[in-house]
């Protein structure tokens, strides 16, 4: 299976609906400082169920909702959808495509969706259990953080090995 598409709306600086389609190989994301590249990474982490606002550079979860700009009003909701393709084999599902979505509202209320149907985060985690998706300790490397594994204490490094086991 592979990640076909990422749709972002209302998440951080993505005030307008943005769609990225990924190739089988290498996709490079470029642009000036502050334009939103790392926010794309945050969107992926968040959609996969990140619980810590701090891991997304914020203070609380509502910080991920677009909070306005000189020319735009804040939005009331953030939504990110990831669509996977060629899922039959690894997910054992009847579906060729599977999409995961996550939404959050200003009041803190939020929901997860699997193929557009509301579900619990747990349902998503169980479905993707052996695929390696959602195991972000070694598949999502944040800016400036790659050396952390070398400077962290020996006990703290286990997490990345345990995820792989």
């Amino acid at each position: 299976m592979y990640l076909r598409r990422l749709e972002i709306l209302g998440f951080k600086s993505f005030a307008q609906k943005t769609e990225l389609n990924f190739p089988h190989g290498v996709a490079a994301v470029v642009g000036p400082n502050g334009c939103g590249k790392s926010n794309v990474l945050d969107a992926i982490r968040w959609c996969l169920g990140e619980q810590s606002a701090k891991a997304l550079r914020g203070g609380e979860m509502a910080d991920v909702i677009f909070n306005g700009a000189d020319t735009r009003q804040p939005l009331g909701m953030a939504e990110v959808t990831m669509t996977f393709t060629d899922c039959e084999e690894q997910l054992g599902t009847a579906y060729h495509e599977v999409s995961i979505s996550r939404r959050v509202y200003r009041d803190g209320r939020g929901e997860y969706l699997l193929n557009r149907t509301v579900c619990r985060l747990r349902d998503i985690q169980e479905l993707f259990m052996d695929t390696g998706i959602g195991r972000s300790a070694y598949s999502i490397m944040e800016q400036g953080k790659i050396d952390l594994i070398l400077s962290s204490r020996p006990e703290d490094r286990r997490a990345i090995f345990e995820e792989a086991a």
Partner: protein
Amino acid sequence: TRELFTETFERVRVNFQEMYAELFGGGRANLLLVNEEDPLECGIDIIARPPGKQLQSVTLLSGGEKTMTAVALLFAIYMVKPSPFCVLDEMDAPLDESNIARFLKILDRFVSQSQFIVITHNKRTIARADVLYGITMEEAGVSKLVAVRLEKRGQGDGGGTRLRG
């Protein structure tokens, strides 16, 4: 479970030795369980010696050497448990040109099993990409996807219908 962890650890360890020697063009590295009697709880030590240099604590390594060591460990884990996709945010920032070239060469071995989404400012990494996404903020504070250029290399999911504005 104890066997699962120890077996995974051992496989990652062997891969790490191989990956390190390749990324550094020599030298030696290893992973050690701090307490072999207690593999499920103990810490993990990282040993690394660049070619021609004496073995010392990894903390004394340079910024670029630390990044390359972390990359070797990362790929060592991917060899055991590949992730369908992998997001790397400015991982090349501390690397000089020759290390970026080595990194990209190793990356090639993994593109058949995983997609890579790399956020970068570096021309060489950009040149390697199969698809390029440019993000800007023409409207201050609002991210906009402005260009997707399909390289002639790679599948890139089909022809010229990728341009977005």
